[in-house]
């Protein structure tokens, strides 16, 4: 019997909702349980509704779950807004003062006076979340010592008084729950593999992965939802000899990356859509001057300032094309937190090897969500380096030498005899400006040849995930964080007797042509679910492969739900059946 349990905690920002969720998540990850989470953020700095959802399983999970088994709400608004997502047979744990609808009767509701207990017994309203945690620990049958141990670590720096406060609050919650909550509730504490799993957010994974990949120069300008990358690096990069600079704007950030990278370092910036818009001129410079760089784009609702705390996948075309002129770049889109950790290293390797900018495309949901990660992922070592001249070129170094090679050797400033110019102007082999048509053609071809070389490079093979049945007639193509809901939807469709094949390319420029072309030949219908209005991946696929696509787009600021994908799969299956029927003349 597999273990698969989804919990949601909802309340007002500032009520400690996230602490409750994170504590449960950490303890489960230490047991070796797999988990995927999702959290929302209010648009305001203080206050506003927020929630965290955690799906625990003894198998790897790609999606945080649609309906929840257990809902914990800290106030009336949270109850009203989240109750619809509780399973009919689910369990609700909420504040005693709240009005709970009687229907459906299959639900169990436990109403406990959390706030009153916190105020009367602990003497502080802010201890409420720990009282809730105590009750939840009882409900989920989490051993008390595990929670105590975790809280002691988490609040160690806050001193003995706070620790004692928390211990008391936890006990109060547990004691009250023991009386009120039936011991016959169906939940049990998950039994994991025993080996601890790493638990981190997408942003933390990117920061750690980049550090492990040898990134030592980070330039950034704070922006939601990418700021945590810079915050983590500011704390951790100095000790390993790295430097983090908060610049005056995103333009300065990417130019700092260009300078540091030209000078020989592995450099990165992280931003969101508005930042990438500002950076697009420099992206062209990096393509033109052939300088490696990694730019993380954590997408949010756009255009313009858009919806800073909401997720969207609407920067794909900006990532692939955004810059004037023909400016090739690499675009990599991880689908999970584990991908964030492992693929950022690959992104550095490819950027260095092919001397070009690389955009690492994530989104708010992926940046912010906690997920378990295999601890071995972190062991990836850099697998490629920049091709560099060794020096003493006789004083006439051809930085942009034309040859059959995919790249020409660079020279790091300081190298004797290789003094040269890099430039954003069209240039000859020596970096001197040149505006003749022959040079411009030869150099443009030189820069674009890298994309073909990347496609054939062993490093970039195996960058597609496949789901479902290989002989299915219905195909689904998606990208980035929508992969999880698609994987889940394909499983659900299978349960309903419909075979679906899914493919998720994690490299979006250059597209993995061989794999996509084979995929398109094998299916009769192509559904493309993604989080934007115009269907950006669909439009790339249509123009590249001349295929027709069924676009499933969503711009609600939250991830796709498997049920939304399943219903399009069902509709598509129906049209296939009609067509098959007509072929035999029965529908007429």
């Amino acid at each position: 019997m597999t273990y698969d349990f989804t919990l949601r905690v909802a309340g007002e920002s500032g009520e400690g909702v996230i602490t409750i969720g994170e504590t449960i998540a950490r303890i489960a990850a230490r047991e070796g349980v797999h988990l995927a989470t999702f959290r929302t953020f209010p648009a305001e700095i203080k206050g506003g509704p927020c929630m965290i959802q955690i799906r625990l399983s003894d198998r790897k999970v790609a999606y945080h779950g649609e309906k929840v088994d257990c809902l914990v709400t800290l106030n009336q608004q949270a109850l009203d807004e989240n109750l619809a997502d509780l399973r009919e047979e689910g369990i609700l744990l909420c504040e005693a003062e709240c009005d709970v609808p009687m229907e459906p009767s299959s639900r169990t509701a436990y109403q406990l006076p959390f706030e009153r207990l916190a105020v009367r017994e602990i003497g502080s309203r802010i201890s409420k979340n720990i009282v809730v945690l105590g009750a939840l620990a009882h409900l989920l049958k989490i051993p008390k010592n595990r929670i105590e141990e975790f809280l002691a670590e988490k609040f160690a720096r806050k001193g003995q008084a706070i620790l004692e406060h928390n211990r008391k609050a936890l006990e109060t919650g547990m004691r009250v729950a023991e009386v009120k909550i039936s011991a016959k509730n169906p939940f049990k504490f998950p039994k994991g593999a025993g080996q601890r799993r790493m638990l981190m957010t997408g942003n933390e994974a990117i920061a750690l992965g980049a550090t492990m990949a040898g990134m030592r120069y980070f330039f950034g300008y704070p922006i939601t939802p990418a700021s945590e990358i810079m915050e983590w690096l500011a704390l951790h990069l100095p000790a390993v000899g790295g430097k983090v600079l908060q610049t005056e704007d995103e333009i300065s950030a990417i130019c700092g990356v260009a300078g540091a990278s030209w000078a020989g370092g592995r450099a990165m910036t992280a931003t969101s859509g508005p930042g990438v818009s500002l950076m697009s001129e420099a992206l062209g410079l990096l393509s033109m001057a052939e300088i490696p760089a990694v730019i993380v784009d954590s997408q949010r609702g756009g255009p313009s300032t858009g919806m800073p705390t909401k997720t969207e996948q609407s920067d794909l075309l900006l990532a692939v094309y955004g810059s004037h002129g023909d400016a090739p770049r690499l675009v990599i889109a991880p689908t999970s937190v584990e991908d964030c950790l492992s693929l950022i290293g690959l992104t550095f390797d490819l950027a260095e090897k092919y001397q070009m900018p690389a955009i690492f495309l994530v989104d708010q949901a992926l940046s912010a969500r906690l997920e378990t990660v295999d601890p071995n992922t972190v062991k990836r070592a850099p697998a490629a380096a920049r091709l560099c001249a060794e020096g003493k070129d006789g004083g006439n170094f051809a930085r942009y030498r034309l040859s059959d090679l995919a790249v020409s050797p660079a020279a790091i400033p300081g190298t004797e005899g290789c003094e040269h110019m890099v430039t954003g102007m069209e240039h000859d082999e020596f970096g001197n400006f040149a505006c003749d048509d022959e040079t411009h053609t030869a150099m443009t071809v030189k820069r674009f040849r890298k994309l073909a070389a990347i496609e054939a490079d062993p490093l970039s093979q195996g960058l597609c995930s496949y789901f479902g049945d290989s002989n299915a007639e219905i195909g689904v193509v998606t990208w980035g964080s929508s992969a999880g809901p698609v994987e889940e939807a394909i499983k659900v469709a299978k349960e309903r007797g419909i075979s679906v094949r899914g493919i998720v390319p994690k490299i979006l420029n250059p597209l993995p042509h061989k794999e996509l072309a084979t995929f398109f030949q094998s299916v009769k219908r192509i559904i493309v679910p993604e989080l934007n209005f115009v269907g950006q991946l669909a439009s790339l696929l249509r123009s590249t492969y001349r295929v027709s696509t069924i676009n499933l787009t969503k711009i609600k600021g939250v991830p796709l739900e498997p049920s939304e994908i399943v219903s399009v799969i069902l509709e598509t299956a129906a049209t296939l059946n009609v067509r098959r029927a007509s072929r035999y003349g029965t529908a007429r």
Partner: protein
Amino acid sequence: MEPQDRCCEYLSGISPVWCPGCGYYGILSALVEAFAELKLPTQELALISGIGCASRLPYFVKTYGFHGIHGRALPIAQGVKMANPDLTVVVVGGDGDGLAIGGGHLPHVARNNVDLTYLLFNNAIYGMTKGQFSPTTTLSNVTKTSPFGLTGEAINPAALAITYGATFVARGFSVKKEHLRDLIIQAMRHPGFSFVEILTSCSSFNTIDMNVARIVNNQDLVNPDHDVEDRLAALRLASDEKKIHLGVYYRSRRPTLEDKFKEMRSSAHAKAKSRPEGLVKQFL
């Protein structure tokens, strides 16, 4: 080796694209003489520029060079210096590049005291695009894009640099080549952000603001009694509207960006939370 030959070592052999009579020839000459005087190995020099006539200079010298995008020479140079503090980094650019499109970067590179030298060629006009007003244009009121006069007051580059927190600020004149060379040498020797505003003519599009004869008649060297550590006195000299003072206005010492990074590194080692061994452990 003759001084002349030493200078030639720093020239790339590419002929400048500048117009005949352009003041930049004098600046290029003063710059390579400064390099020769400082005996800097060519491979340890990095010249960074943005866009404009002045920004073409790196092509004409035989050093490592980065011709970037309009207005962004300073952030690029800051990145270069961070990744390789051993390089001697010099930024060259015009008044439009540095004070219009790129005006937002100067305060931050100055306040961070990045150890590099910024030579701002001030000819008070956009030359490469053929004669539109720049942020320092005042007298030649009527330009191609201000046929009915200017809309704004001119910026005073040296005064700005002083208020922004540059730790070395000077003003030179392209015609006084030897004096300029000495200013560049002092600027390059200065540990920290050094800023030299170089008054220079545009022989094609602005012969009024930076009229050579007018400047020659209205200039004087900074009085030897001037206290270069007095920021307000420096600001008064830089802002003097009656006379142009040539020389070093301001010089002070404070930790450079690199010094700060070194401090951070030792603080990080002292702080349990940020030690390298905690990188992975914190997630388990």
